[in-house]
């Protein structure tokens, strides 16, 4: 088992910087998820930890060892690729055994490890097949199996579920969570799916343009986003942002919230509730209702012309075109600077 430390890590291709001064502590046994929009450098960072990309600046340590110059296979890490990257010409058994053979493990050890992993992942019956003859989900298990048999101290996953269909994705997500419980190894997981991030992570790292925006537990990021970017990235549907000027002054005062002009107030769709006109924080015209059974997503347009989404337990009684009056608790109002996006506390 091992911790992972990134100190002032930078990466540039030619002269273009893609990772800028990243500092991060990952504890032994922690499940850390990197999230962020496409192109923000999640994969690059993960591949630098794996040793597949050179490190332009800074230091990466695994355990107590600086690994900048250590070969990928000597870092005690194993990687699961988005495309699985199985060896197409080898059987499932050999796919899993290949790395162990390279490490010159004794044959009986290899056999024991491969069979144990296959057992745990329910792929024993496919051991003699080649990857061609497997479904996407089965291939993904083999890819995970190939990582497990190496008994790494750190597992690296790069969007491992993005090629699976929705149902399988939920299943495999659970399986990865169980795997983490069972092995207790450090895991670093890249995704742009915030549901995966929220459900799997002990700690989420939100990245944007090669910089860390915020690090924290899922609940910290949900309750205390440090800026508007993190606020809108965590949570689904996204947080609504309303300029302070467009909110009812009296209601704000009654709630005890000061919001100067130039402030944005963020409210999550699930934190709105309907109220009387006099107590409304904001009033908006109903446009469309998406009824999902267990809850309804209500799309509205405020008087100032901003679209907002409200999550309700059941569809509203009002018809399209009618006005709905909304408010929220003080604790669920997040204030951000309109220009910098920084949280105002």
């Amino acid at each position, binding site marked *: 088992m091992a911790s992972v430390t990134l100190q002032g890590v930078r990466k540039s291709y030619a002269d273009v910087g893609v990772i800028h001064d990243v500092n991060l502590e990952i504890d032994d046994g922690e499940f850390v998820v990197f999230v962020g929009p496409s192109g923000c450098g999640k994969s690059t960072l993960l591949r630098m930890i794996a040793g*597949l990309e050179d490190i332009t600046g800074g230091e990466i340590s695994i355990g107590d060892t600086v690994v900048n110059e250590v070969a990928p*296979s000597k870092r005690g890490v194993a990687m699961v690729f*988005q495309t699985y990257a*199985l*060896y*197409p010409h080898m059987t499932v058994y050999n796919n899993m055994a*290949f790395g162990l053979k*390279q490490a010159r493990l004794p044959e009986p050890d290899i056999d024991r490890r491969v069979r144990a992993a296959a057992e745990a992942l329910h792929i024993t019956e496919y051991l003699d097949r080649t990857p061609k003859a497997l479904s996407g989900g089965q291939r993904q298990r083999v890819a995970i199996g190939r990582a497990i048999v190496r008994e790494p101290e750190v597992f690296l996953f790069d969007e491992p579920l993005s090629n699976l269909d929705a149902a399988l994705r939920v299943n495999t997500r659970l399986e990865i969570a169980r795997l983490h419980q069972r092995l207790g190894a450090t895991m670093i997981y890249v995704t742009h799916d915030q549901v995966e991030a929220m459900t799997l992570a002990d700690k989420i790292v939100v990245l944007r343009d090669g910089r860390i925006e915020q690090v924290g537990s899922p609940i910290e990021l949900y309750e205390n986003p440090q800026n508007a970017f993190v606020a809108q990235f965590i949570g689904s549907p996204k947080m609504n942002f309303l300029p302070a000027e467009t909110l009812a002054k009296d209601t704000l005062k009654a709630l005890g919230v000061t919001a100067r002009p130039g402030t944005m107030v963020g409210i999550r769709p699930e934190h709105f509730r309907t109220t009387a006109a006099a107590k409304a924080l904001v009033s908006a015209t109903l446009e469309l209702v998406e009824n999902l059974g267990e809850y309804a997503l209500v799309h509205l347009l405020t008087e100032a012309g901003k679209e907002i989404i409200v999550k309700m337990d059941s569809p509203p009684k009002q018809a399209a075109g009618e006005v709905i009056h909304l408010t929220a608790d003080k604790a669920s109002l997040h204030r951000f600077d309109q220009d910098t996006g920084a949280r105002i506390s």
Partner: protein
Amino acid sequence: MNQKTIFARFIRPSLAWGVAILFFFPIFWMVFTSFKTDADAVKPEYLFLFTPTFENYVNMTENYDYWRFAVNSVITSVFATVLTLVVGVPAAYAMAFDPGRHTKDILVWMLSTKMLPAAAVLYPMTFLTKNFLGIFDTHFLIIIVLSLINLPIVIWMLFTYFKEIPKEIIEAGKMDGVNIWGEIKDIVLPLAWGGLASTALLCFIFCWNEAYWTVRLTTTEAATLSKLIEGNRAPEGLFFGRLSAVSTAAVGPIVVLGWFCQKQLVRGLTFGAVK
């Protein structure tokens, strides 16, 4: 019946047959003529009706040393193909999996050497090999020359086949701790096996058929079948029977080889576009 079906059912097959016959006829005629005596071959009255004879073939093996030329062809083609691959595989590997800033330029430059007229270097080549290096008319020279001629095209082909291998599979290998030779031996070659076979086959055929240099850089010792054909060519056209027999015996082996490896050949010639 609409336009399209008329085209598909009659015109297209007719065209295909027409082209096929056009290409095949000279070969047919060559084989056909090889069973005529030299005298019969030029007489119009024996155009189709003649008494077949093996005289030319017997003559060829007994008096013209066919087997020595054939053995030379085999030796030079096999070793040149092996040498080309030994140099070409690592080169293409490096360009495909660890490209530098100028890799594309190098590839284009290599191909551009194929556009240089061979005749332009005929004199320096002959002078160098004959008077300076003293390797004129040796297997060694022919093997080197054939390799150099085919290297650009072989590297190009291998490069495109290697490019088809997903980068992640190579990276998975790196994570598994395979070294560079293991990577080539256990991952790249097994995955590019079909492409490699096509490339080797095509290279072998090009070597076998090469005539410009094999004719000019040999006299007897390293002379190949191309040289044998050349030697039996009489400008007055008096020995058509003999020439046809020699030609048939020279292209025979390669046609048989091509017949058995049609699939790889098509794959090779189309750079893997047809699978």
